């Protein structure tokens, strides 16, 4: 049969390519690590199985491919499998398979996917005899998988299972010669594997990687969970799960499918559904196991709507991403996405709390300088993995000192860190609660932040102390700018895309540096930027309550209104709604209060009292009407500006406040408060010098006002050397 390139193949490929590229903004520039790196973790078994190709010098330098090259290869694999699925089984399943694999297959799984696809295709070749060519091809595929990937166990499982299945299925057709040959071949293979296990202790552990995650500690690898991660990842996993279940069901129902093949499909589905890392690869395998004969060309042409719908889905995905995230730097440079840790002048062990991020530290440039305590190779874990997991838990919970665990062991991360002496602790930048806890540790300070990881180092050693101080100075400068101080971001901060900036902004907010976070946010109206801005205003509002005992009406109003809007949005996950509820409660907490004692209270009219109450509690309603009733009119304008602070441009709010301040009838009792708000707005607008003047003016007017403590702190930070 001649191979014909039907037009629909291109459409399938284009759809998959678009979806794969949508997972990475900087697809043109970014590299993708395709070959599993060499493993040299300090708490792992010393002689862990290494991918042989990774250790070969010429390959080591090219273990990473350009992301676009990876995308092209992945989309070919995906298109092949999804197309056949949709044409021979069900169209919807094919579409789901395409979307699922395109969005979830990671670079280090590409070669595994290729080997699995090849193994299944070999098994599907209809021959009446177990020919030498087929055997040689099978051995080549298995050998290739051993040399290039860690998932050769999966390939072996598929090859073995399909071979036994074919033997069972052709028991009448296969001659005595072939029946006799198979056990010999199987015995030789088993002997080969056993020999390999004898020569290399950990070969067996690597061989059984697809199943030994069941009894190994993988709690610090979120990717091992099915239906975990970002919403996009969960959707992809869910789609693959449905495809696997339906396909397995079809296989199980089929009378003529051998029991071995059914068992193989069940095992693969269990692996794919139980371990998120294997979802894509096992989905490919299961769909290929259920492979049916191709449709005639005439029927293929009538189903062009299927790939067209896939392309439409891909276009919708791009549209959605642009709408949510604003205009990203599509196809731009990826150099600034991650902090370049090779710029640091120290070296030593590194502890990562999210073991999925191990690959960041296993590049040729980092591997020897920053060996990990524990990476993502669960098959190479020693018996110290439990200790590492427990210490990670304590780190993320802020449990520094010794405490007793329910199992009688000693808790507290300080002892673990003292024993293993890492130079850096890497926390996932999404773990904001953990970053917040660890940022107040007396010894460990933030050394660098990017969208993926926040790295802590000891401030009291000569190795990492300079970098922690450099980072401290940078963050302080971003929060309270001092004159004539340059900001060096290299090695400390990486902002990358708009999405990256927002992620870094959330980290800075968690560290209680809201002005620094506002400074780096992209200047757009996207929902995600607005969300980060909301949490910044919360931090500012709470700072005022904590340090002055009273709310800053400017920040409190914006925080409460925005938090309520965020909470009411259907796109806000339930978890974040709970955080918002707690945040709003914290703003209403009255443990700390500052008042002007009886007898000194300035007379405040009822309309003004209503407006102040509304600002404090985020009610706008008919408050504007109350503003009209306040006299003098400059005071009404003052409050109107505050009420519009959530909707108007900051420059307009500032201008309105300054106009009210400059009016002749503006009362002295509000002048200091208005100057404080003007100073805060100028800080937000990145006019540090102007902000300083407003704060200084406020200090001159009333050095002991309710905002004095916070204002003095700002002034001292902005004028320190």
């Amino acid at each position: 049969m001649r191979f014909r390139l039907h037009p629909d193949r291109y459409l399938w490929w284009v759809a998959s390519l678009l979806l794969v590229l949508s997972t990475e903004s900087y697809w043109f520039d970014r590299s993708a690590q395709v070959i599993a790196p060499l493993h040299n973790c300090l708490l792992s078994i010393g002689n862990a199985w290494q991918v042989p190709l990774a250790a070969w010098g010429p390959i080591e330098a090219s273990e990473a491919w350009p992301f676009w090259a990876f995308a092209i290869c992945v989309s070919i694999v995906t298109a092949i499998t999804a197309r056949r699925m949709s044409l021979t089984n069900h169209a919807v399943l094919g579409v789901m398979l395409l979307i699922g694999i395109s969005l979830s297959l990671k670079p280090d799984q590409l070669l595994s996917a290729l080997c699995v696809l090849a193994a299944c295709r070999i098994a599907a070749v209809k021959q009446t005899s177990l020919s030498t060519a087929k055997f040689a091809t099978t051995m080549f595929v298995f050998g290739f998988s051993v040399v290039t990937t860690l998932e050769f166990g999966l390939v072996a499982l598929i090859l073995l299972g399909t071979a036994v299945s074919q033997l069972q299925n052709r028991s009448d057709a296969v001659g005595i010669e072939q029946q006799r040959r198979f056990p010999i071949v199987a015995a030789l293979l088993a002997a080969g594997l056993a020999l390999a296990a004898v020569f290399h202790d950990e070969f067996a552990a690597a061989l059984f990687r697809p199943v030994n995650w069941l009894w190994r500690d993988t709690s610090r690898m979120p990717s091992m969970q099915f239906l975990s991660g970002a919403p996009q990842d969960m959707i992809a996993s869910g789609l693959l799960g449905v495809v696997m279940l339906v396909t397995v069901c079809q296989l199980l129902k089929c009378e003529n499918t051998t029991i071995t093949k059914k068992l193989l499909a069940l095992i693969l589905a269990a692996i794919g559904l139980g371990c998120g890392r294997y979802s894509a690869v096992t989905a490919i395998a299961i769909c290929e196991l259920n492979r049916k004969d191709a449709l005639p060309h005439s029927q293929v042409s009538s189903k062009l709507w299927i790939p067209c719908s896939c392309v439409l889905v891909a276009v919708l995905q791009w549209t959605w991403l642009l709408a949510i995230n604003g205009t990203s730097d599509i196809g731009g440079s990826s150099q600034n996405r991650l902090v370049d840790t090779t710029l640091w002048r120290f070296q030593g062990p590194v502890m990562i709390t999210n073991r999925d991020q191990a690959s960041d530290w296993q590049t040729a440039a980092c591997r020897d300088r920053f060996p990990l305590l524990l990476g993502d190779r669960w098959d190479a874990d020693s018996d110290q993995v439990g200790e590492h997991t427990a210490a990670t838990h304590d780190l993320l919970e802020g449990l520094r000192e010794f405490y007793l665990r329910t199992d009688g062991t000693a808790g507290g991360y300080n002892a673990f860190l003292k024993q293993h002496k890492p130079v850096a602790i890497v926390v996932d930048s999404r773990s904001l609660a953990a970053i917040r806890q660890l940022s107040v540790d007396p010894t460990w300070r933030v050394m660098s932040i990017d969208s993926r990881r926040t790295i802590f180092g000891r401030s009291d050693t000569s190795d990492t102390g300079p970098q922690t101080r450099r980072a401290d100075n940078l963050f302080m400068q971003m929060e309270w700018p001092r004159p004539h101080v340059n900001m060096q971001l290299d090695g400390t901060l990486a902002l990358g895309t708009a999405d990256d900036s927002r992620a870094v902004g959330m980290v800075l907010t968690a560290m209680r540096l809201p002005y620094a976070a506002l400074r780096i946010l992209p200047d757009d109206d996207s929902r995600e930027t607005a969300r980060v801005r909301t949490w910044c205003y919360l931090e500012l509002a709470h700072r005022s309550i904590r340090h002055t005992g009273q709310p800053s009406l400017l920040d409190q109003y914006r925080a409460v209104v925005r938090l309520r809007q965020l909470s009411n949005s259907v796109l806000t996950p339930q978890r974040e709604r709970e955080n918002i509820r707690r945040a709003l409660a914290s703003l209403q907490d009255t443990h700390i209060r500052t008042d002007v004692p009886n007898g000194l209270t300035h007379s405040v009219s009822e309309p003004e009292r209503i407006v102040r109450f509304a600002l404090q509690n985020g009610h706008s309603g008919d408050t504007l009407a109350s503003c009209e009733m306040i006299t003098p009119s400059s005071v009404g304008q003052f409050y109107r500006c505050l009420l519009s602070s959530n909707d108007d441009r900051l420059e307009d709010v500032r201008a309105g406040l300054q106009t009210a301040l400059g009016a002749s009838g503006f009362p002295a009792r509000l002048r200091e408060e208005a100057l404080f708000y003007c100073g805060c707005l100028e800080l937000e607008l990145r006019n540090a010098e102007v902000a300083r003047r407003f704060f200084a003016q406020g200090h001159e007017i009333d050095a002991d006002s309710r905002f004095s403590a916070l204002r003095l702190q700002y002034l001292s930070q902005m004028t320190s050397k």
Partner: protein
Amino acid sequence: MKSTEEMTDDRVPPTSRSRSHAVAATGVLCLLAFCGSRIMVGPSRDAGSWDVTAAVDGWADESSCIDCHDQPSEFAQTGHAKTLRPVSHPDSVKLLTHLAALDAAQAEGTKIVHDQDDLYAVNESDGLQRQLKLDWCFGSGTHACTWVSAIPDSHGNTDVLEFRWTWFASIGDFGITPGQPETRGNSPVSALGLLFDGPKARRCFSCHATVVPVSDGRIEQAHIHPGVTCQRCHGPRAKHVQTEGDYHPQGWGSVGRMEAVRRCAVCHRLSEEHEPEEIVPGNASIVRFQPVGLLQSACFMKSEMRCTTCHDPHRPMDQQDSLRIQQCIQCHDSKIDGHTTCGAGETDNCLGCHMPKVKMNFPVEFTDHWIRVPSEQTRHEP
């Protein structure tokens, strides 16, 4: 076109079709169950089971302990039992009312105000009134009492503001809380106390309470079981009570000596939590951490002693045998040949020289548990 592996439906007997459907359904259900279990349970461990004090379940009502055990009858009078109380506790209120009489507090404008059921520390100075709602009283009063306010941070996590003034038993009066500056600050926080962040706040409560439920960084104040009571040391005992004692998990009697000391040291501190250069005789700052000194003592190293050798944690300190020399003469009896005895000729006042009380730089004295022969170099400076 179907694969040659498949048969057409009309050649498949109905019973065979139903069997294959059943097999398919069973297989899929098993897969779903497995997948569901992985998602629901997952490889992660329940964070609540890590810290004994944060365990969610298994706690018994301790009023039932006395039904079977004698120890609880006196335990309520111990320092452990009273080491954390709500600020509204009568003893706490009684002490706080004395603050008004303190000249130093008056001078800086600090007083205590009752507002219905709440107590506030109020500072009036510089034309402002700063107010702090107090929540808890730390300390049994044997040495001191310090009050705190549990305040939420912007994420609802619990920070603690330690009140500036502490009541000291030795002087019967208030003084500046140890570790706080002599001069008050200007903000509500610094005028009234010192802020402890979340991790430190949790640490404070975990040593002064038996149950400290924590939910995403927030200490669930309403569910704190204050005081170091029965189950803090003996563990959650709900099942023990339910089975009327038939279920009796491993207790203190079965743990080794070092483990027993370690359990006390969870709160009374281990030497590993200090720098090596700090653990020297004569360093007053480690005296308050009894296990640190005890583990350096020859008495400890050469015997089988543990904390409970001298201290019965079920009884108040003033009724302890540890105030006398009963344990010392087990190995240092002048009437028994071969025992090492006091070179100064003392026979009934071992503690005065070998475990002296050391005055801190605040009005509290702690007994030095580094049992040793005193010398000029190792004698504590006042």
